[in-house]
């Protein structure tokens, strides 16, 4: 039976697969030391999976980070992340992207896109596209769909996801990438983008 173990003293818990992809891509891009990254598969699972992951046999957890979307309310998402860090025995920092250091260790939380506004990882995608021409075409496609009334009645969130997926489909060479997280891993988004500055600094502070 192949049972997963923890190998590092830095533990990052992400809300989903896309956030996990972003974190893994940034760690590689910034040549940061390796750490354990665990996908909680949904905000509802963040708390039990964080506290359970802390208890996986392995090195003591010296640094703990949570990466999740703001969704409709960044302040509520931040409060939830602080509650999880406190449950795990850490003293949570007051704001997103900050790293608090105590005798227990370092901890912090990233609320995407920027810790202030409502939104999600797709907002970062929209602001960090590598291929400007492809992105212009995707925007033209959506304008065209809107004008021809061919586009379904979509919420803003769904439309952002649809734009990101159209962009990723257009970027594909041999295989279509459907997930934003994979897009970050495959280099379809600019990891040096200004909109990712807080995230880069957060990971650098947590993993150093």
């Amino acid at each position: 039976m192949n049972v997963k173990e923890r190998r590092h003293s830095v533990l990052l818990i992400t809300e989903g697969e896309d956030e996990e992809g972003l974190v893994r891509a940034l760690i590689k891009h910034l040549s940061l030391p390796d750490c354990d990254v665990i996908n909680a598969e949904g905000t509802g699972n963040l708390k039990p999976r964080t506290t359970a992951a802390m208890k996986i046999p392995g090195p003591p957890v010296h640094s703990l980070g949570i990466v999740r979307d703001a969704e409709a309310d960044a302040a509520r998402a931040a409060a939830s992340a602080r509650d999880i860090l406190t449950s795990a025995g850490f003293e949570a920092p007051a704001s997103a992207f900050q790293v608090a250091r105590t005798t227990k260790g370092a901890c912090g939380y990233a609320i995407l896109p920027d810790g202030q506004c409502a939104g999600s990882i797709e907002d970062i995608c929209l602001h960090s596209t590598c291929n400007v021409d492809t992105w212009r075409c995707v925007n033209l496609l959506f304008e065209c769909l809107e004008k021809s009334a061919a586009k379904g009645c979509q919420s803003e969130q769904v439309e952002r996801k649809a734009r990101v997926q159209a962009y990723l489909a257009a970027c594909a060479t041999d295989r279509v990438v459907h997930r934003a997280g994979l897009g970050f891993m495959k280099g379809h988004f600019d990891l040096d983008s200004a909109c990712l500055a807080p995230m880069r600094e957060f990971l650098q502070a947590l993993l150093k």
Partner: protein
Amino acid sequence: MLSSFRVEWFKPFTALDVPQLAPITAIGGKNNCGKSSLLEAIFLFFDRTNPELLLRSMAWRGFSKLGGTPELLFGHAFHDYNLDHDIVLHATYKGRRLTLRFSYHPQERVPAVPIEAAQEFGSSSSPQYGHAPAAPSDAVKVILSDDDTAEELEQGLVYIDEGHFKLSGNMSRADLANAKYQSPRVRSSAAEDAQLFGLLDIEGSSGHLIDFTRQFFPDVRSLTSIAAGEGMIYADVGLPKKIPLPALGDGAARLVSYYLAAFHVKSGGILLLDEVGSGIHHSQLPRLWEGLAQLAEHFSCQIVATTHSYECLEAATCLRNQLYGDKFRYIRLDQQPNSREVQVVSYSVDEFCAAIENGWELR
């Protein structure tokens, strides 16, 4: 219910705090981390009126005879055989905070009062009564006290006389529940099970045991206690003759044995099951946990079970809907690297299920 337990200077432990025990608690951890010792410590707390209490666990571990000096005989229960440190067990039981202390007294003058004498080491015969000699003997003083009132509830002296362990003093006054320890090596004997079945039958409750057994072994039509020889439970499985229960297989005999143990400890009692899933096919393990949950519910008893097996722990997640909230805990004993210190890692139901669902190591 036993809700928390602390062990000091017992076997591998200098100090071990188990702050949260649940109606069903599973205990895991690597070899030699102290899982069985923790069960033995809990059993010792409840079985303190047995003069052989300090030696019973040696029989469970396969020792049939022990020799040596009194220091050696008593010493194996003490941390590092060091008799200078008292064994201290702190328990919160039904909301009462109690402390049981064992202290070694060389050449203690044993009072000449009626005593309860021990049965042969490792045997299950009934205790006898006699009178303690007035001669000095190496002894272990046993004191149970109430932490909140500072009242000394029980006091006894365990000593060796003519090759037997004996107990004098005023024990059994604290009115604690029964405990029963079972492991693949040490189970109730077939005769003991048959005797308990007889008592169950007298109470008119054997039907419940049969219904319970049939959930897992539908072929079982009825069970009977046969007094021939030492006594044995026989099962009617539709064959021309009834067959001895163990002939049905280890799983059936073990489940019935667990049932009868739960019947024995009754309400408020505690069932201590070492290596609970051992020898049972993985496909049967969810049934085993379901059976244990039914026993805990039906007899209002508590179950503390150890296991090494990931499959056995995985099977326990079948109880997720029944064991919500505080009804289940998983505890792992972690030996610290380069140290003999043991740390308790305690999982809630949600954490336990999250770890299993993700295939994370938790043993």
